[in-house]
């Protein structure tokens, strides 16, 4: 499974819709729609800059839901990726209801620990949305188990200790982490952080159920718009589905 991230509203709301639809058309299985936030402390410079452009352009939580709706209308699937404060401010129940109405399937929360997630998990359960949590190479086994118990859809395995951004090599910690997760849960595991090429995607697909690509799509959007994003999606999709598998 290929999962591609782009922030809603980058470079504009309309254009961000065009970009994610191109991703779907070129083989991305699930779109991770980023909710632009003023203090993205898990993101590297590429996504920081993109999010800043989106916010300056007036992107809001409603814009994110608009992008989700457009993806659904196009026949695609999406989850939202958001830091916690905008969701809490919007209202957890209100957000959950609107996500369901727009056809979104889940929410990735990179700064929400399971200990603080009670109200969100309750709402997600009621509305059949997937709460998607992250595990990291530093997570203990008992913590991975606890996180897996609260997660639905898939587990997001952060491939390395660090922030988002493309890297020449995907960390060697990733296979070990995925292996540990597999011992502890039946949930599908997707690997993210640092993936940018078809070759990397192919390598990860040999041991993980999903490959998550973010910064590389933002760079492609910046460099060549819809065409470049489509091209990257095609390359990654081929990697994910390569016969190496």
């Amino acid at each position, binding site marked *: 499974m290929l999962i591609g991230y782009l922030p809603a509203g980058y470079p504009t709301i309309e254009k961000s819709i065009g970009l994610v639809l191109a991703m779907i058309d070129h083989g991305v299985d699930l779109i991770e729609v980023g909710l632009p936030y003023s203090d*993205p402390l898990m993101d590297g410079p590429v996504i920081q800059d993109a999010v800043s452009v989106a916010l300056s352009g007036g992107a809001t939580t409603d814009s994110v839901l608009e992008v989700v709706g457009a993806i659904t209308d196009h026949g695609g699937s999406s989850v939202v990726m958001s830091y916690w404060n905008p969701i809490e401010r919007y209202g957890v129940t209100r957000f959950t209801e609107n996500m369901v109405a727009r056809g979104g399937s889940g929410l990735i929360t990179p700064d929400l620990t399971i200990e603080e997630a009670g109200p969100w998990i309750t709402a997600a359960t009621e509305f059949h949305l997937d709460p998607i949590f992250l595990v990291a190479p530093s997570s203990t086994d008992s913590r991975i188990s606890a996180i897996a118990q609260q997660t639905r859809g898939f587990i997001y395995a952060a491939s390395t200790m660090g922030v988002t951004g493309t890297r020449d090599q995907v960390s060697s910690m990733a296979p070990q982490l995925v292996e540990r997760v597999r011992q502890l849960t039946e949930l599908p595991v997707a690997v993210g952080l640092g993936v940018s090429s078809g070759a990397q995607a192919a390598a990860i697909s040999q041991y993980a159920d999903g490959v998550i690509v973010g910064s590389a799509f933002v760079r492609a959007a910046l460099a060549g718009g819809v065409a470049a994003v489509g091209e990257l999606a095609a390359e990654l999709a081929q990697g994910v589905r390569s016969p190496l598998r």
Partner: protein
Amino acid sequence: MTTSENLVWSENSVQLPGHFGPYGGRFVPEALTSALDELDAAFRLAASEPAFLQQLADLERDYTGRPSPLTRALRFSEYCNGARIYLKREDLNHTGSHKINNVLGQALLTKRMGKSRVIAETGAGQHGVATATAAALLGLECTVYMGEEDTRRQALNVARMKLLGAEVVPVTAGSKTLKDAINEAMRDWVSSVDQTHYVLGTVTGPAPFPEMVRYFHSVIGREAREQILAVEGRLPDAVAACVGGGSNAMGLFSAFLDDSSVSLRGYEAGGDGVETGRHAARFAAGSPGVLHGARTYVMQDEWGQTISSHSISAGLDYPGVGPEHAWLHDTGRAIYEPVNDSEAMTAFSLLSRTEGIIPAIETAHGLAGAMRLGAELGPDSVIIVNLSGRGDKDVATAARWFGIDLGDVVSAELAEGR
């Protein structure tokens, strides 16, 4: 269970570790959870060991210069309706502010955890200087993140950090101030947590930071309580402090929390005035939200995006506040008021001219508060103000404010800081 949409918490959360009522907690990337658990355990173990406490006390006495005096401000009192004003002299600590108390504690913990590097954020530069100092003392590598805007207005402290051997990284993202420096320090920490401890400089951030930083600053309140009982034979009517993140205030407040007769007063930065929108008044104009790892009062818009703060004081120029302050505010145990730039600068000038003490501009907000408090509580009242830092770093800003001609040479040097 859930009481409202915008304030998500259960009634049980009052008893949860790492929380202050609904506030505090941990809102961080999963990658940091194990480091925070490790820190929490190291802190609790150290705090239970007499040997560690002795080591810290020795450093406080021999290196910081504690106890810091409690100075009666007789002439300044005349501008406070004659109230008996006492200054807790944290400005006399080594490095010139209260910040060293927390930093020494965390630097010792860093060594105990076997880590070789510390990172820190800084606004006014006082926490950065203190961290660079402790790193030099204990042989730790040190990187300090500072908003580019703040590196300009606090250029002298940037130079001090570099002289102490620290790397200073100007942060150009966002509003280029303290908030963005914290973001960048967090990003560094996620990537380097194996060998690096993040010496967070105030009583905010994810648990256990708010509790731990308060603990290391509680020496301020303990000393002040003992000192005022010795000199006045009674508890003060009020204790006052400026509140950015709120560490100097929590340090002072902590010794008086259970004394219901002692009013706790915090003064946040009103900037150009709360009505102008250019301020850092989280209680006057913010609302509960999540920022930098904790639920607390945050300056935010209707979408939950952080609003940039403004203050003449770099150290108070922050859109969040320590979660324990949020709880003290909601429960009514402490009272928080904004103090505008101009009101703070008036107090800055008055203390300088009446007591021969040039305070930090941050601290001047607390002094302006004392002037209000004197009017409120009357001439017989006893008030302790935390003189949290000295004003050497603020000479250029203050000279500009008061129109003092610094002369060509000095101006050129200070202009670097502009």
